[in-house]
Every structure is written in structure tokens, then in C-alpha cells.
């Protein structure tokens, strides 16, 4: 079965990071949200596996919860 690879799988990290930051250079919040959404949608299609997408979503959820536990008022 397809599995999410949680080890390093690509090179050129600094260039890639820079490209993403540049994409958000104009600082417009609404635009940025949409740009991120487009990135996610395109990458999901590129991943091509519902199972891996599920695992990534789960990984992000757990990571987020670990460092930013939900406040009880939420």
C-alpha cells in the first residue's frame, strides 16, 4: 500500500523555500490563502494517492495539536 515518506526525499530545500516565500511577497492575506490553497490542490493531485494524502493530513493534525493544543474554549 502507498505510504507517506516522512524522511528527506528531495534536494534544493533553500531554493524551494525561497520560491514559496516569494509567492507570498505582496503580503495580501486573502491572496495568500488562495495561493496556498492552489499549491495544496495541485500537490494533492501530484501525490496521486488518497491514502498518502490522508496520512499527511493526519500527520499535520497531530503536529499542530502537539505544539498548539486546542484551548478549552475552542
Amino acid at each position, binding site marked *: 500500500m502507498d505510504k507517506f515518506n516522512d524522511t528527506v526525499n528531495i534536494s534544493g530545500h533553500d531554493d524551494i523555500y525561497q520560491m514559496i516565500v516569494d509567492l507570498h511577497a505582496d503580503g495580501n492575506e486573502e491572496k495568500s490563502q488562495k495561493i496556498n490553497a492552489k499549491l*495544496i*490542490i495541485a500537490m494533492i493531485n501530484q501525490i496521486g494517492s488518497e491514502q498518502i494524502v490522508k496520512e499527511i493530513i493526519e500527520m499535520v493534525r497531530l503536529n499542530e495539536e502537539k505544539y498548539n493544543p486546542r484551548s478549552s474554549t475552542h
Partner: protein
Amino acid sequence: MTFSDIPKFKLKEYSKAPELSSKTIAHKPVIIVGSGPVGLAAALDLAQKGHEVTILTAFDFIALGSKAICFAKQSLDIFDRLGIGERIIEKGVIWNIGKLFWKDQTNPVFQFDMLPVTNQKNPGFVNIQQYYVEDYLVDALEDMDNVDIRWGHSISDIEVRNDGARLDVDTRDGSYQIDADYVLACDGFRSKIRDSMGLDFEGRIFEDNFLIADIKFKGKAAEQRPSERWFWFDPPFCPGGTALLHKQPDDVWRLDFQLGWDIDREAVLKPENVEPYVKGMLGDDIEFEREWYSVYTFQCRRMNRFVHGPVIFVGDSAHLVSPFGARGANGGLSDAENIAWKLDLVMRGIAPRSLIESYNDERIMGADENIRNSSRSTDFMSPKNEQSLAFRNAVLELSNDYSFARPFINSGRLSTPTPYHDSPLSTVDNDEWDGGPKPGFPCVDAPVNDNEDSNWLLEKLGNDFKLLQFGGKAPESDLDVINIPIDSLAAQRYDAHHGATYLIRPDQVVAARWKEAQADDINGAYQRAIGAA
């Protein structure tokens, strides 16, 4: 009661209840409450199976207002079995093309073809006003001697008793009581029966209003417009909202506009306020007449259980969905066919009473799937926060140029039959199969003799338990056998090699299948399918 605010398609004759002039309380085997599409279909099904059927309905007319128009293939298959399928197809508008528009662009972002799997008797969808469907069902019911339709008989209370239920009925001549072994509560989403029994109806209310304009085109416009489903996101004539256009019979078109939450309902419905929407969508030179204007809000909710002893909730009384996806009436008709065969076998003493419980299991699966799909469509159409709006718009902008994003567009996922995964009535496969409908799944149609317009498999199935035998000889059993040639498209669609057998339920759902069946297998699976295992 006069229901003076409800527009009427056809008046029906009220008749005085014989119980009003009698001291004893009549006792009926089954009473169906409600004359919507669901109650009428359940009644006709049971009547055709030979039962004495009593229908009590508050209305003394068939209503005209804007309700269901899109009827899905599985409903057409049901109508076929009930004998009104051809009338519906003849009157209805078959459509295959759906187009999605965005903002003021005149070219669609996306176009889909609903052309169903070819070589099946019925098309994927037919548009026809709900009142025609009700009218045809009533015609068929009125032809039967074992059916008593009581128009203008309104239920005010119900009492569940040891041996059935007792209904309090109001009529213009006074009130009476009547008893039944079983009551099918098909009394719509405001169900009086549900309220009287103090039962729950939980779910989500969507904070939105939709304007529905059913209009009749005049002049040339009608002929020029193709019968396609057109859907808009954020069009200039309905900024920030969605809009939908559908063709109906008689040159009537349904226009649907999302208005948002904070509106003045009365003002919105004034013809001078509807007109700009219509012209915005169809052009300034359009000539039209109003058939009916209404505003609706919607909810997705269901009862926790549909079966409460002798009282069984069917259709909108049990579950309510948003109209996107055409799942209300279509889902309710699937409920009706599911309960009809089970109640038939129980009332005839063939199946144990516990078979009725499987209606609860299976149709809750159906309702949940419908609610899930229509909630998701609604969330796509009216995003609830900035992030979801960003995703929605990202999908639309990408889809304009790239096909990969288009399947994310959700303008309503149209109704298909729900498979009953893990149904208690199914016998799990023992053999290896490479395709074909699994136990719990609906039968697919196919020509039996590779002759395109005759010999449809679903027609042969009818509405009894059947064995489908693909080549070879069916093992000994009391069930009717349909022999299917092994070189047919039907055999291919059922992944059937020589000697394969399928056991099919009366609602045309697969109960079990074998590559090589023994008499004991078939008997065991049949017992399980009638809840006797």
C-alpha cells in the same frame, strides 16, 4: 382545513369516513399517512402485492408548488416496476449535459456528460415536476380495488398500542379513530406523527435562502435553449451566490438563486423583484410567465431511528436533505421500495417481524450518505469561513485552465443508489470475484440477449426474490429462476462464468452470489435475506 396558500395542480374528492357513522373502531392491516411521492409509491407497491391499503392524507388535492424535478435512474427503475415508468419517461425531459459557469465568463469552466452507462433501459436522469409523478401514482392507485385513498383526512394524534397503533383523524365532518397493525408515516418533514410521538429530528440548519422561480418561456426562447443543467458560481446577476437552471416539461424552467441569510422574504417574492434575476440569467429580451415563485431554506437532519414498533417513518418525515444532488424524493422512493417488500413478507407471515429492523439499518445508511453528500455540496457552494472560501475559489480558478482541479468542483453530486455495506441481510462472498455487484449492492441493468432494446435484466427481475442463473442449471429451490446466456453483456457485467448464480432481493439488491451454488447455500442465503437466519 383548506390549505388556501398552497397552489393546486389537481383537486381530489374528499369522502366522508364510514367510521363517523359507526360505533366500532375499524382495524386495518396497514395505513399509509401522506400522499407525497413516497407515501403513494409505498402504497402502490403494497397494493400491487395484494394488500388492503388505506391512505390518509391531509390534502384534498395534488399540490402545484416548486418541489422535486430531478428523478434519478434508480427511481425510474422503481416506477417501471410500479407500472408508471413509461408515462414518466414520455412526459419527462431527459438531460445529459451539465455546464458550470463562473462569474461573468460566457464559456463554461467545466462541462460534464451525464450520459449513463449505455445499454441500460433507463437514462441517468429525467426532469419532471413532482406533481406529475404524484398524479400518475394516484391514477394507478385509483384503478385498484384494494386501495382506499382518503383525501382531506388529517392525523392529529397517534397512540402506539400492543397490537399496532391508533390514529386520531380530523375531517371536515368531524373526528374519528382508526387502528392499524402497521402505520407508514409518510407525512413529510413537519411530520405530525413524529411530533405526537415526541421523537427527535436532529441535524444541521444551513443559514441560507434560495429563491426558486419556476417560469414558462414564451416565444422562440424555449426552442432555442438546450435541455442542459447550468450552474453558476458568483454570477453578476447573483453576486457572491450560486444559481441553477433546469428544464422541465411544458416549457417550464426552474431557476434557483442563492440569496444569503438576511433577506426580506415577502419583498423578494414580488414579481418586480424576481424579474431582474430572471433577466440577469437569461437576457433582457426573455419573455416569460410566472408558474410559481418561492423561497426555501434548507436543513440536513434525520431521526435517530426510523422504526418505532408498528410505526415506520418513510421519506422526508425520517430525513431531510438540501435539494442539491436531488436526493430528497429519490432517497424517499428508495425507502419506500425497501420497506414495501419487507412489510409484504412480514404481513404474509413468510418473514419474521424482525425483518423490519433491517429497514432501519439499511435506510439509515442511505440517509447518512445523502446527508453527507448534500452537506458537502452546500459547504462548497456557500463556504463557511475565509479559508474554505479561499479553497473554493482556488479550485475554480485552477479549473478554468487545468482539468486536474475540476473534479473538486461540487455543484451537487447527483443521486445514485446507496450500497448496503455490511447489511445483515447479505451473505458475504466466499468465492473470488473480479467485478459485478457485490452482496448489498444494487443490480446493474444490461441487455440479456445483447439485443439493445429488449430483454432488459431489471425488467425480468420484477419485484420478487429471483435467482439469476448464468449458464448451467440452478440448484433446486422454490425461487423463480431467470436463465441468462453466458455470452451476454449481462453475464459480463455480473462477472459471471458458466454456472454462476446470484440471489436477488425484491428491491433488486444482490443478496448473495456463488460461482457454483449448492441448494443449501441458496436456502441459507434466502433465510438470511428475509431475516430468518
